[in-house]
Structure formats: C-alpha cells, structure tokens
C-alpha cells in the first residue's frame, strides 16, 4: 500500500502496523464488513416484507391462510434460529434445483435422491457449473439473504401482528362508519397507524438482526468472522512478509468492539426516531412535549 512497505522486516512498529493493516488480505476483511452491511441493508426491508405478509395472513378471514400465517410465526420462533439457517441454506438450494430440474429436464428418468446424493441434470444446476466464480458467490449471498429474510420475517410478523391489534378499535370503527370497505380500512387507517406501535418491537428486531450477522459465517459466506479467523491464525515467515503469532484473540476483540459500537449507534438513532414519531401523539411519551 505505502511506498515504504517493500521490506517489512526493517520497519519500526508503527510503520509495520500501517503496512500490515493494509495488505491485500486485510482489504478483503474491510470489504467483508461491507458484505455484512449490505446484508443488513437488503435483509431488513425483505424481512419486513415477509413479516408484513405473515401478519396479514395471520389476521386473514380465510381460515387456511390464517393457519398458515400463525404456523409460520410459531414454528420459526419455537426453534433455534441457527437450526433454520443451516436448514434453509440447503433446503432452498435443493428446492430451486428441483424446480428447475422439473422444468428443464422433463425426460430425465433417474430418481433425484440416490442414496446420499442429490442429483439433478446439468442444465438445472444452480449456479451452472460453467459459471464464473462471482456468480457462485452472489448465489451464496442471495441464499443467505433469503434465509435471513424468512427467519426474521417471522419475528417481524409477530411484531406487526401485535401492532395491528394495538391500533385503537375506535379508529377502525370510525372508518367503517364512514363507509370504507375492509380493504380501505386496512390500507388507509390501520397500516399508517400501526407503525407507531410496531416501532419498539422493530427496533428490537433491528438489534437482533445486527447481532445475527456473524452467523453468515455458518452459511459459507466469507464474512468478517471468516477473515478474522483466517488472518488471526499464526502466520509463518515462509508464507508471508508479516509473520506473527496467534492473534485471533485480538481480531475477535476488534469484532466485539465493532459490534458494540454498531449496536450503540443504532440504539441512539432509533431512540431519536422514536421520539420524533411520538411527537404530537396523544400518549404518555408524546404528551410531555
């Protein structure tokens, strides 16, 4: 990175660290922070969408749909989330490949599950075996996002379901008295008002989501945990210009500090938003200002 980095052995401590922390591998670490942030940026709205549909179906008047919504909320929350991560990554992949197999290779006769193997025709493989490396990585990331969205969608559904019930009954009755249909009442009265009641739960969920991002590591994405383990391990003089002992404890300490500051900043921002939303509302918190 810097011009004086050509011979690390001769450097003083400060310059050595300046060079060490800007090696190519460390750049990958900094990029993986962006991976985590983009996962958050994509997952949060996706989970919210899943949650919205989950909550909508849980309060639907159609019985099977209601059962489906409630089962989605109950099952995902009753089982450890990490089990779902491990499950969905394989299950989704196989579901996609199976669907493509049925469409693309209708004349294939062999069974897909042969003993311990899952075999689909070449054209149905995802991604195609001829695809470039980045396609594989993007596909893996996509599966991770979908998994996160499904799991946290259930938590969001729970929050939104509660928020929809918390909107005062009188508001809905007024809407009905004005002759609005059920659909109009839902979209014009219930949905705009529920966010206030949903916000504490959703802020909590955001914190949970932040704290769940290191689990990306288990899904096979090269995230910060992966790189911290990789680079913290003792580096031998033969393979690198920057030999050092087992530094994994310091890398994970850095991750700990990163997450602590991230949650702290989120807490402060969410507190601000909450205060702004409460402003002017006829509640205990809003009345005092």
């Amino acid at each position, binding site marked *: 990175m810097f011009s004086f980095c050509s011979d690390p052995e001769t450097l003083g401590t400060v310059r050595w660290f300046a060079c060490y922390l800007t090696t190519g591998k460390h750049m990958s670490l900094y990029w993986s922070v962006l991976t985590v942030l983009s996962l958050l940026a994509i997952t949060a709205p996706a989970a919210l969408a899943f949650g919205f549909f989950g909550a909508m179906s849980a309060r639907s008047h159609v019985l099977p749909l209601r059962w489906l919504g409630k089962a989605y909320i109950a*099952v995902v*929350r*009753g*089982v*450890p*989330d*990490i*089990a779902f991560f*491990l*499950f969905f990554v*394989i*299950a989704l992949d*196989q579901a996609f490949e199976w669907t493509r197999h049925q469409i693309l290779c209708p004349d294939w006769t062999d069974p897909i*599950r042969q003993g*311990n*193997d*899952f075999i689909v025709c070449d054209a149905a493989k995802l991604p195609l075996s001829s695809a470039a490396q980045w396609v594989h990585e993007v596909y893996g990331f996509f599966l991770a996002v979908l998994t996160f969205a499904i799991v946290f969608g259930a*938590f969001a559904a*729970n*929050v939104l379901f*509660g928020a929809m019930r918390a909107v005062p009954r009188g508001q809905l009755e007024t809407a009905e008295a004005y002759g609005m249909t059920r659909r109009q009442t839902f979209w014009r009265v219930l949905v705009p008002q529920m966010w206030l009641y949903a916000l504490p*739960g959703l802020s*909590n*969920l955001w914190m*949970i989501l*932040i*704290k*769940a*991002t*290191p*689990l990306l*590591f*288990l899904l096979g994405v090269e995230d910060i*945990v992966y790189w*911290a*383990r990789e680079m*913290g391990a003792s580096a031998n003089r033969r393979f690198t210009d920057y030999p050092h002992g*087992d530094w*994994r*404890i310091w890398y*994970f*300490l850095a*991750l*700990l500090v990163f*997450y*602590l500051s991230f*949650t*702290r900043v989120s807490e402060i921002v969410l507190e601000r938003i909450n205060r702004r939303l409460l402003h002017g509302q006829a509640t205990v918190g809003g009345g005092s200002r």
Partner: protein
Amino acid sequence: MSCWQTVQDYGLRSIGIGERLLPKTDFTLCQHFTLIGSGLIWNIYFGVLALIIGFFIASAVAVGKNAQNRAIRKASEWFIFVFRGSPLFIQFFFAYFLFLKLKQLGYATFLTSAQAGALIVLILNTAAYSGEIFYGALRAVPRGDVEAADAYGFSGWPRFRRIMWPTMLRLGWPAYTNEAIFLFHATTLVFFSGFPTWKQQGDALYYASYFADKTFNPFVPYPILAFYFIILTLTIVWIFGRINKRLNRHLPEERRKKLRIRPNLIR
C-alpha cells in the same frame, strides 16, 4: 438392527457412553431420533446450569444497576451493555481464544473445553439479559410495598430478601421465561463457534448437521431437531408457569398475571 439396540448403542453417545463410531451409511430414522436426542443432553446441561447460576448473578447485577454507589452502578451497566450489545457468536469465539491464551500461559487449562468455557460465556450472557429484565422489574416494585416494609421495621437485607426480591421476581417473571427459552436456543451455538467437539460428542444441532452433511437431505434431521426443541420449549413454559403461579399465590385471582409468552427477544 432393532431400534431398541440403536437406542442402547447411541442413546448416551453424546456423553461418551456406548458405541464409539457414529453410523456412516444407511441412516435409519431411529438413528436420527436417538442421536439427536442424545445430543439434547448437552443443550439441557448448558441451559439448566447457565440458568440456575446466571439467575443469582442476574439478581446481583439488577441490584447493582439500581445501586446508589456510582462505581457499582457503572460496572453493572457496562457488564449488561457488553454482553447484550455484542453477538453471542462473537463472545464465544473471543472467549475461546482468550481461554486458549490462558492455557498456553499455563492457567485454567480446563476452560478450553466447551463444557466449562462455553458454560461460563452462557452464564455471563444470560446474567446480563436477565439482569436487565430484573432491573426493569426492580424499578417497577410499587412504592407502597417498600413503604409498608419500612413501617414494619424492615431494612437492609431483610427488606430486600423478604419484600423487594419476591416482588421483583413476580413482575419480571414473564419476560424471564422468554429469556429462558432463548437461552436454550442459544446453547445450540456452542459447538459451531470455536469450541471443539471432543470425540464427536456434540449437542443436538451438531448431530443434526452431521446427518444433513452425510445424507445431503436436510428435510429429516432438522424437523426432528425442531420437534425436540418444541417439546423442550413447552416443558420450560410449563415449569416456569408453575413457578409463576407460586410467585403470584398471595394475589386475588383477577390480579394474577397470566404467563403470556411473547418470544420476541433473542440474542
């Protein structure tokens, strides 16, 4: 091989009793159920011990956060912030490498095993989460109760032990039940986070993922795992419900707080 034979061979496999080698091919449904159930022993071990020990630390932390003394208050606040503000997964990793360092220096060598090291992390973690719950409950203890205690001549430790602590538990109990459920869920992280699995003696999720890796079929082991955990959750809810009833036994029927489980707080 009959199913009963499998249960005898693998029922206690996770704690090292029975057949040494795990099944390699031709997995039966019975083997799935037996091994994953066997792994559940560790989840219960971690969960129960962390809950019991963490409970007392949590009470202390809650009182500490409510203390007049600034140093004690700040220490409790930081303890809660560090353990609630960072992912448990990272805490496990950090603790493992910390214990590894200690081991290299010759101290406390047993801490690098999951059974001791991960347990400590779980205890501290649940102590922080429950400490925050209990702190909230402690602040909600009705002023009248405390004044009545003062009038009867209670003070210091007896006042806390006989009046404030039971009320704090009663008020915080529904939230604490949630915490207990999620603590048991969190125990599945142990063997996926640095802590090594010794002789393939892992927890329920460890065996479930073992089967999923070997058969490349996630649709059997994970639902079995889910089945076990739902039963575990229902058991916890039942036990905590009994305790809740006892904590509320002096109240008139309509003022008793029913235990409503709203699991929306995870780590």
